């Protein structure tokens, strides 16, 4: 297994280099520059700004300088926010984005696994159709619709929860976590149901039942471990998706996470910020996929053998 992990890490390095290089050149090829504004700046001001940020240098020189700095952990200054470094902005937004993703995945796992397991156990009954219909709805309803809807009900009409913010008012993390986690809960419910149905039909489950174990023990001690395998495989890309895709929820709930910087950087042609966040999110996606693969290897002996 260690060999597999090492191989995956070795593959990740060139992947990151390719992603970063392509991003570097794409940002420079995109029309418009970081200092373009509705009120056009005099050319001499633009020249001075280009000089300050080394944008007058030939592209290969910029490329070399940038990646030399990245190797020593310096992602450069943000063009949009003078005085802030990209590293500083990532380290400010990241804990919030991580926390939001953590609560969202927690919510998704709790609701998703519960619904999936019940649906599998009560196949072709109301307790199967109803949660699965809700799950389908959860997958279809986008966060930009669900978020404002929840805010309207719980924040404005019922006045139970804050409508926005993060670590500002008690309970302000509930609605964003549910909004972000809802679609994932729905996926997990469907994957969990499929996995559990497959496992519940296996011989070892029949043997466990024949031994006289209660249904709860059969499910918790024997079925669940195999039943959640598809869910575990899904968790890697899901967490990466939660991190990189939190932009909409951060915007709806006014959350100071990293997602907002990521998207705005592209609109603002904030070259260093685009590169920094892209490299970072790519690394995160690779890392969480790796973690998910390792978990599958631990949980599934057949995967280890193959």
């Amino acid at each position, binding site marked *: 297994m260690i060999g597999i992990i090492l191989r995956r890490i070795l593959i990740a390095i060139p992947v990151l280099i390719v992603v970063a290089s392509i991003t570097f050149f794409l940002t420079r090829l*995109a*029309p*418009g*520059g970081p*200092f*373009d*504004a*509705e*009120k*056009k*700046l*005099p*050319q*001499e*001001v633009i020249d*001075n*700004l280009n*000089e*300050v940020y080394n944008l007058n240098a030939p592209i290969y020189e910029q490329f070399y300088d940038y990646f030399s700095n990245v190797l020593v952990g310096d992602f450069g*200054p943000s063009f*949009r*926010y*003078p*005085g*802030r470094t990209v590293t500083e*902005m990532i380290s*400010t*937004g990241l804990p919030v984005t991580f926390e939001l993703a953590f609560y969202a995945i*927690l919510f998704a796992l*709790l609701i998703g696994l519960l619904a999936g397991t019940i649906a599998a156990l009560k196949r072709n009954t109301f307790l199967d159709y109803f949660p699965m219909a809700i799950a389908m709805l959860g997958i279809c309803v986008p966060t930009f619709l669900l978020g*404002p809807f929840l*805010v*309207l009900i719980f*924040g*404005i009409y019922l*006045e*139970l*929860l*804050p*409508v*926005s*913010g*993060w670590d*500002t*008012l*008690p*309970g302000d*993390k*509930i609605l964003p976590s549910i909004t972000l986690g809802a679609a994932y809960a729905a996926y997990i419910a469907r994957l969990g149901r499929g996995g559990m149905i497959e496992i519940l039909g296996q011989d070892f489950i029949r043997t466990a039942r024949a031994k006289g174990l209660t249904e709860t023990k059969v499910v918790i001690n024997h079925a669940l471990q195999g039943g959640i395998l598809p869910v575990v495989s899904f968790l890697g890309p899901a967490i990466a998706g939660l991190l990189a895709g939190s932009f909409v929820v951060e*915007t*709806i*709930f*006014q959350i*100071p*996470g990293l997602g*907002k*910087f990521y998207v705005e950087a592209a*609109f*603002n*042609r904030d070259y260093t910020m685009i590169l920094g966040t892209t490299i970072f999110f790519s690394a995160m996606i690779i890392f969480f996929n790796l973690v998910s693969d390792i978990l599958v290897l631990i949980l599934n002996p057949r995967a280890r053998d193959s």
Partner: protein
Amino acid sequence: MKNFISILSIFILASCSSGKTPVEEGLENQILHWGNGSEPQGIDPHIVTGVPEHHILIGVCEGLTITDPKGGRENLPGVAQSWTLKEDQKTYVFSFNPNARWSNGDRVTPEDFVWSWQRALTPTLGSQYSEMLFYVKNAKEFYDGKIDDFSEVGVKAISDYELEVELENQTPFFVGLLAHYSTWPVHKETVLKFGEIDDRSMKWTRPGNHVCNGPMKLKSWELNKKIVVEKNEYYWDADRVKLNEIHYYPIQNESTEDRMFRAGALHVTNVVPQEKCPVYLENKNPSLRIDPYMGTYYYRVNTTLPHLSDSRVRKALAMGINRKLIVEKVSKCGQKTAYSFTPPGTSEYYPDTVVEFNPEKGKELLTEAGYPNGEGFPTIEILFNTQEGHRKIAEAIQQMWKVNLGINVEIYNTDWKVYLSRQDNLDYQISRAGWIGDYQDPNTFLEIMRPGRGNNQTGWTNYEYEKLVAEANKTSDQEERYKKLMEAERILIDEMPLIPIYTYVKQFQIHPDVKGWDANILDHHHPKFVYLERD
């Protein structure tokens, strides 16, 4: 599982409402909660640009003068308690308020302004508003590196309490310019403590480091979350300041801001969601405020293209637009139809130009230009940056030109930076544009259409226009000056390199507790005039 259920229970229990909303608590403690658009780039007055930055800077720093919060033409004293214009009509002497202090207690001196303007004009700082000071003698020469010695620039401390500013020419709106933050001072010792004169890192502006001279001072700054400023006890007019704190929230999403206002989290919003404005107007929402604003929404015409180089064609296009219909049925939020480039009322300047909605005359002009009933006229493209509001207006105009003039129009939206780049390279036919004035004078509008100006972006050149605007800027007699500017405006509207559509308004929501938030076309709200009180 048990642990998780416990966490969830704590979560739900913790969600119990704390009772008072921020707005209610704000009233008790004189804390204003203000929706401030986007995250500010920073608060170094010589580096930043933009409205959210200005909202904070107007609280924490102060220039020689401030704008009249009630919209009056004359500026009010800031650091300078009075000023005089010498006989040559181009040398000002500003007398400093002896009580003007920095937030660390140091006295604000004329020397501070000399150093600050030197900083703003240092090319390697990369200030984006350095041209605001180019009216000062030799300022541009210093910026361009033609002179190295800053003492040759026309700004001098002539005593401990007097600053003399010599201008290149008579510039009647110069005092108005001084209310713009790019001319405001920075605390030399603090700036130099954290870097060189041209250091853009702005470390000196961080909480704990920041020193400036406004009615408020920086207390905390949580990136993308909130900026808090508190009352500055050293401010020269501190007795007048009633607010204890202002909390600025960078909320870009209009709907989020609207929900926060409805839930009592904000006293003032930055905007009103476009789709909700007509509903609020119809329901007579008491929180909705629509104030005049010094900005024009218009269409640029690329006059370098053969079919748009004829002014008769451009006038025909202007006459084919029913502006009344656009403001009443499309934008629907109190905007005013525009018949001039400069918004009427800018520093008591009321242009008399007319752009009539007259499809028949428009057709006649098109026929004269060789396109009877629009026949033979190439399909034109309207370019705009991606935004629903711009799309609706472009679609309405597309329809009007088709029906009224027989011209085929395609509309094309792009990302903001692509849109800017295409305008700059004259790679468009018709392009949406907006211009917001920096200071209260018609010059802030008419100046940009002078030949060769970076913001002209239409390829239009008219030397009579250039002569009139240049002459007006050297005329100290205001009546004579406005006459020349009016003449220039008439040429602009007659030639129509730009088609005015409507005059902007500032639409926002404000809680009835907020007092002293007067309407003014620059949308400047100096915190010392604002307070919270329940009727």
